[in-house]
């Protein structure tokens, strides 16, 4: 069973920006993404705006090679960190048939 070392980029932030971040991740080289609804609390969570009827926070995960991970984190950090409630981190993962997630 061959496993490929790749990076898992996780971004958690306000719902209003998350589907954009997902799309932008794919533009920056991710082969796909996995979004989920969460309940978030942080230093700026009072700024969350969807007042009712929707989850206020979402999580987005990308399995990508290191260079794409860097690009996504830079992009998110520059464009969203100042004005939106969000957090992003990187984890080392071993991916099955990982070649299909590189450079696509």
């Amino acid at each position, binding site marked *: 069973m061959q496993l490929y070392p790749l990076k898992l980029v996780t971004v958690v932030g306000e719902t*209003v920006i998350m589907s954009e971040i997902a799309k932008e991740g794919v533009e920056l080289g991710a082969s796909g993404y996995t979004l989920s609804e969460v309940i978030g609390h942080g230093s700026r969570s009072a700024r969350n705006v969807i007042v009712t009827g929707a989850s206020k926070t979402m999580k987005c995960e990308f399995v990508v090679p290191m260079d794409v991970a860097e690009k996504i984190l830079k992009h998110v950090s520059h*464009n969203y960190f100042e004005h939106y409630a969000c957090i992003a981190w990187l984890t080392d993962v071993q991916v099955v048939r990982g070649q299909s997630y590189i450079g696509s």
Partner: protein
Amino acid sequence: MFTLPLALLAGWMPGMMAVVSAEQIGRVLESLERNLLTPIPLCFVLGLICTQIHGGIKIPKELYLSIAIFLLMSIGFIGGHELAHEYHEHGVATIWKPALATLVLGCVTPITSYVVLRYLCRFSIADAAGIAAHYGSTSAVTYAVANSFVEQTQHPADAFLPTLVTILECPGIAIALVLGAALSSRDRAAKARSAGVAVRESKLGEALYEVMTGQSIMLMAGLLVIGFVSTLFMDAKAFQPFYDFFQSKGMLFRGCLCIFLLEMGLVAGERLGDLVKVGPALVAFGILMPLVHGFFGVYLGHLAGLNLGGCTVLGAIVASASYIAAPPAVRLTLPEANPTLSITAALAITFPFNIAFGIPIYFEMAKLVGAT
């Protein structure tokens, strides 16, 4: 440049106060009692109380969303149905003036709001524009409650009021966002250059399109057309079950409104704590601006030929602030605006004020200007 609206604002307020005699205050209080001690506002109060004592009522967000969809469809469908009758009898003769008046109000209210917020309350450009976007638009639930109120007082509003709600939804948000984007663009460009990084292109166009094709507009306008068309083409018997389902005097609409207001109470109650944070200027704005806008609505509605109920309802919707369509649009286009300000004002100040006190006041205003 902004002196005219400021002068208008400064002028109306004391004027209105002077005109409101003791007798009128008495009638307002009586209306208030008749209005407040009914299930719809009482459910709102129950929601408020529940949050204050940390009670356990939880309305699933899907129920809230489903009721919102039903209410919007219902407003549209019954609106289209009654518009078809009106159109059949009078053509566009009775409709074009109120429609125009509503359009004017939709363009004026974001500007009065912006001016007051920026120059009287001293908010930043982004915050002022963000809040103005909320007050330029309207709240469909405030419409529904106002409509119930006038029906209960035996002064039902003109048939085409739902059409006016639809007209009022968009322009105000668009104007405020364009204003905010234009005025704050110079700042941002400078910042971007100094940071030396590619800044996300403006989301303005996207956000405006999303407002104009948002759920509220699509459902209300869509069902308005459907209600209009099916009234013309179906025979009355086949039409009946659809009418019964969507009927705004009916049990489903009124009952759902109770549950919806309960949830609104829960949401507004959670925001009550923010009243301290937003400061007294915004609290005053959230109460006085609706009174001014409400009077604009009542007055222009009267000039445009609306009846007593119609003037009241138009006043209420012009006075109301959006808390569904506006927030995400503002968040995307003016990210530096603090959403706590606008949402607290719209939801925790203006909405309850209108439901409890505003609607009966607009009713008395409408009598005052001579509507019948």
